């Protein structure tokens, strides 16, 4: 994010100091805005709540819920084929549902679409059921031949927006779906 602090820094209860989640969320918002996202289908995630709230109230982007992740991949593919700027937001747990759609349609048909998936499992996870699956998500995606980039609290903040924008550009250059895995679980102060 460039310039003054994004309003998202102050939109969550608690105010300052900014948390890693809030800083990352602001960067995702900045990246999607720089991509002039017109449509943002989403399957919700608690860690992405700030991002989703921002786009739900956005004057020019249309953010709407989808029921399942593979359905979101299909809708995103249709929007992308129609030449619209769009992204799907979901949790990484939803790749189990959507891997067939991503590979047999997105990948096989060379649809340059952007999926932003929030990370579950690992540091900061509060759900006992997801770690075994979630920790293997990057390996699963790699094994399926899907392109992905990762963002977490160790990623320098200026890289977040640049990665999102670059991921979409890469999807168009390489003619394939691209996934950005964003870990927004850490709520500890960033400094």
């Amino acid at each position: 994010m460039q310039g003054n602090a994004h309003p998202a820094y102050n939109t969550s209860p608690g105010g300052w100091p900014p948390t890693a989640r809030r800083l990352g969320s602001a960067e995702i918002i900045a990246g999607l805005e720089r991509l002039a996202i017109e449509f943002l289908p989403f399957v919700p995630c608690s860690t992405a709540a700030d991002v989703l709230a921002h786009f739900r109230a956005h004057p020019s982007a249309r953010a709407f819920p989808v029921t399942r992740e593979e359905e979101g991949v299909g809708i995103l593919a249709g929007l992308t084929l129609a030449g619209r700027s769009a992204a799907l937001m979901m949790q990484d747990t939803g790749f189990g549902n959507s891997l067939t759609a991503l590979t047999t349609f997105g990948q096989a048909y060379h649809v340059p679409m952007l999926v932003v998936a929030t990370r579950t499992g690992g540091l900061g996870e509060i759900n006992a059921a997801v770690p075994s699956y979630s920790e293997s998500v990057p390996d699963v995606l790699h094994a399926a031949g899907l392109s992905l980039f990762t963002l977490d609290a160790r990623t320098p903040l200026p890289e977040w927006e640049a990665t999102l924008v670059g991921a979409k550009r890469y999807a168009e250059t390489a003619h394939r779906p691209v996934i950005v895995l964003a870990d927004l679980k850490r709520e500890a102060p960033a400094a």
Partner: protein
Amino acid sequence: MTRLDALREILAACPDDPVVGTCGATIRELASLGVRDNCLYMQNSMGLAGPIGLGLALGHAAPEHGRVVVIEGDGGTLMGLSQLGTLALLRPASLVLAVLDNGVHASTGGQPTAAGALDLAAVFAAAGCCTAQAEDEAGLHAALAAARAAPGPWMLHVRIAPGNAPLPYYQEDPAVIAQRFAAFLAR
């Protein structure tokens, strides 16, 4: 009415509309009628034709009375039924979902689907779709005309006979199919 009969009617009624054809025997029969720029032939991804059509209907700037047509089977419709809530929420006016219902998974050997156990048209009507029923070519012709005349989303419940036309696999490169279709949309 066979599937091929139904596909002929749909293609004749929608020569300049984007058409998404579901996987299996449906795209084989669709392609046998001539490979067209306005058709997206899905070679796999069962259940995804509806959501793709929903995205197209949201994003494609169709001309007045232009439509986005999805050709789905009863099995694929049930597999992709999660779209129902999203469809009810967004209700894109240009979307026409033609469900060719033969009561079986014809492409995989004729195993029964569960479609006979529920009223598919009523399900989509409950989601805010306009609906029409067709059991022969004349009925389908009329249903397609109705879907052209009034804003949707529309769900056309089309009864067809079980079985497939004996045709070879359709194996065009999916990337070529998508590129041709996207170029058609960008005209």
